[in-house]
């Protein structure tokens, strides 16, 4: 199993300057790299009352600069603008990071809900993916679909006359940028149609995730990723005491799941949040591995409601006490107990 940190939320928190939250997020990325994580993830949300980070690209480039080894997980919203913009930004970040980018396109639910631009349909998102892949490929390309006309070959553009293709530059450092699809039913459908890893969101429970993960048998060695709310401390009580207020307020701000506010925290957390001491976290994560076939967990761990030191300790403890259990096949019990 592999592990990532995030997706970083970087929202506005009462009592904290927003600018400090951005710096805190970059420090969390550095801490995750120090404690052996495989990746750090940045998503984007727009028009949110909590002022969540709204540009995966801008913060992704910053994470790429602050880290050296971890992969940089970018979660751009798909289906909203000409996909060339996203392709160009990803290529730049891939070069800043020297080839460490993974892209998990998100279905654009919230933005479409606001009535601004775009199209959240399966066809539109698949078309965006096609444009991005062509843009990252080595050859010039053209693309004509209901969603993209590349190049337009407008009569008014006399200097461009006769050019039937364009070449998006620069090219990414990687030969092929790893692509995943993040979201719920639309993302699962796109993932199945494109044979891409489906990246389930943190707010869905194990039962809710099951149908999305059973759509397709992953190929040999294929990544099966999942995002989870995770918080860890030396004791289960301590972990719950810290995580509960942070998660309750985060989910109130996110408005996800829709019934988040109606039940008790225990109901919300059950089969959804991974909270506890190392043993409890390991046990819960094994369930996702066994029942959904997950082999790549992106653990949030970083909650801006908490003191930055508390988050740093949790990232370290997760790296030392949970990750080895899943990564170090054959770890002798005597060494395992040292954690």
């Amino acid at each position, binding site marked *: 199993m592999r592990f990532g940190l995030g997706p970083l939320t970087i929202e*506005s928190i009462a009592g904290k300057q*927003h*600018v400090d939250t*951005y*710096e805190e997020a*970059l420090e969390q990325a550095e801490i995750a790299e120090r404690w052996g994580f495989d990746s750090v993830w940045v998503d984007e949300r*727009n*028009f*949110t*009352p*909590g*002022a*969540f*980070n*709204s*540009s995966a*690209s*801008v*913060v*992704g*480039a*910053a*994470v*790429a*600069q602050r880290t050296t080894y971890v992969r940089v997980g970018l979660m751009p919203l798909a289906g909203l*603008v*000409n996909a*060339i*913009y996203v392709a*160009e*930004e990803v*290529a*730049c*970040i891939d*070069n*800043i990071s*020297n080839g460490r980018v993974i892209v998990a396109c998100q279905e654009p639910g919230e933005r479409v809900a*606001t*009535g*601004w*631009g775009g199209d959240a349909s399966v066809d539109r998102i698949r078309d965006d993916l096609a444009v991005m892949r062509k843009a990252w490929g080595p050859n010039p390309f053209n693309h004509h679909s209901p969603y*993209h*006309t*590349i*190049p*337009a070959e*407008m009569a*008014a*553009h*006399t*200097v*461009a006359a006769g*050019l039937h293709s*364009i*070449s*998006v*530059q*620069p*090219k990414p*450092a990687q030969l092929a940028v790893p692509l995943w699809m993040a979201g719920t039913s639309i993302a699962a459908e796109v993932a199945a149609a494109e044979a891409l890893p489906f990246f389930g969101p943190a707010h869905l429970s194990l039962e809710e995730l099951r149908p999305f993960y059973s759509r397709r048998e992953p190929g040999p060695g294929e990544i099966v990723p999942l995002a989870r709310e995770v918080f860890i401390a030396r004791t289960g009580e301590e972990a719950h005491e810290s995580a509960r207020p942070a998660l309750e307020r985060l989910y109130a701000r996110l408005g996800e799941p829709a019934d988040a506010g109606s039940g008790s925290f225990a109901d919300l957390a059950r089969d959804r949040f991974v909270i506890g001491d190392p043993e409890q976290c390991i046990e819960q994560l094994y369930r996702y591995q066994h029942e959904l076939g997950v082999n790549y967990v992106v653990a949030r761990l970083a909650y801006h409601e908490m003191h930055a030191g508390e988050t740093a300790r949790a990232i370290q403890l997760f790296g030392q006490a949970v990750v080895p259990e899943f990564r170090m096949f054959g770890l002798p019990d005597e060494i395992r107990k040292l954690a």
Partner: protein
Amino acid sequence: MGKVDVGVGIWSLQSTKTGPRHFSYLYQELIEDAQYVDELRTISTIWQTEHHFWYDGYCPSLLTVAGGIAAATKHIRIGQSALLFSQHEALRVAHQAAVLDQLSAGRLDLGLALGYRDNEFDGFNIDRRVRRQRFEEGVNVLRRAWADGPVNFEGAQFSVPDVAVTPKPYQADVPIWVAAVGPKPVERAARMGASIILSDALTLDQVRSHIDLYRECAEAAGTSGSGAKMGVLRRGWVAETNEEAFSEALPSLRFLLREQLGGWRYLVDEYGEPVGFDRPSELDAAAAKLVAVHERTIGRPERVVRGIREIASAGADHIIFGTRFDSLPRAKYLRSLELLATEVIPHV
């Protein structure tokens, strides 16, 4: 002559025919350059430049790359000279600029231009003929997006519903700069109360008349109190002696002006018509004329101080010292930057 700020530029991240590089090398070099100038402290701003679909990889995504610069630096302001705004979605730029401004703790100087290459508009399926309208509507979208409350904008080019953009920028008023070659964008910037960046294709007399034009228009539009900056892009190079500076920089400058600007049809003749490779003798003449303009900020520190003062006396209060020439050894341009920061700027 009031206070003059000096920024440096313009980072394009090209892997050119004469200086081919792996792009990761170029992006790493940009980050290191940014850290270097950040530590020099007298240099106010690092400026980036944008093009799309250009054969040598010219950087297309300035605000994204600026995220990397912001994370690598603490003091220096980060500007675009310029982001080709008419080729972008204004609301996406609003989001990215706001995030960048937060990430950098208020160090964004957002420089915008119309864009002019047909190939770029064609690639984005945007009619070049609406670029002015897209620009003006787009600036409205930016300003509404960063103000309190919903955007709610209905235009011919952009339509943004009743949504509030979040997060807001760190700066209460993100400076907007408008890049200009001809008088039209100068007038546009003056009406908006925006700062201007005058092109490196302009002579000193043209700079003076553009700045005068700006002031007249700003007066007429009632925006003269906006605190707008009058910026000028000048190619420049500093070495210990004039001879050293000329021999290092002039061949690269000639190449840049003739081969690259010619290829872009960026240079214009006296009638405002683009001069490209199809008109080689006019291209040579246009390039030679510009070499004479930029030579005045190439030389030993004392000469460059005089050159910068000359531009400032035309009314400029921000000089973008364009010291990034293709295929010059990095140690040399870092030395040029150091001399600029320590021997030129303190004496301007």
